[in-house]
């Protein structure tokens, strides 16, 4: 399995989907499931509001270590997954900008590759130490997550 590419990074640069997909596509890959999150300028659900921008902050070395852990957890659960890319962009990010990407490749699409990508973004939002402050028309507010990691997480 060691030859399967795993990319994880915290970056201030634009997320380049074409480049990341190419980097995790082996000759044996026929399918990629990719999730991207974008900054919402307008939120309707729960507490409807507008967002001017989000300011992301990360504890970079731990975030990269936890991204590697997310990749390891994906491989444990879906051994058919070949390449994995996990990228979190940080800094000041405006609506419609991609902020995060999880991509998994596999030989075929019916192998769990969609579920693997979904698992990846769910876990990233639980254990990767990144935070965002939301700046809107009425001021700014740190967004707080809900997950309390357990020992070994």
């Amino acid at each position, binding site marked *: 399995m060691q030859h399967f590419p795993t990319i994880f990074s915290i970056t201030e640069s634009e997320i380049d989907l074409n480049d990341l997909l190419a980097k995790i596509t082996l000759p044996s890959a026929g399918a990629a499931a990719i999730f991207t999150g974008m900054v919402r300028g307008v939120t309707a659900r729960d507490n409807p509001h507008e967002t001017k921008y989000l300011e992301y902050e990360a*504890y970079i070395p731990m975030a990269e270590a936890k991204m590697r852990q997310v990749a390891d957890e994906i491989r444990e659960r879906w051994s058919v997954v070949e390449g994995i890319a996990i990228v979190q962009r940080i800094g000041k990010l405006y609506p419609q900008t991609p902020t995060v990407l999880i991509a998994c490749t596999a030989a075929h699409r019916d192998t769990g590759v969609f579920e693997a990508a979904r698992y990846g*973004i769910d876990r990233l*939002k639980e*254990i990767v*130490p*990144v*935070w965002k402050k939301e700046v809107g028309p009425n001021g700014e507010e740190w967004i707080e997550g809900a997950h309390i990691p357990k020992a070994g997480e």
Partner: protein
Amino acid sequence: MNKVKILFFATIKDRAGQKSLELDIPSQTTVLALKEKLGVEFPNLKDSLKSVLISINQEYSFDDAVIPQGAEIALFPPVSGG
């Protein structure tokens, strides 16, 4: 004694009014004891300390853990990336 580095992020950083500090703590200090010490030094942090997440050397850690020599400790709220 044990010289440790402490990092604050997000709301914890804002309330502490600083990003990081170095601290000399007794050997065998637990996470819980360190939190109590920080609550005295940073009164604004007191309320946050109940629900703060802690990492030691970039792994999640918990109240009972004994802080190793030269540790890098971080305090932060539940994560909200993505």
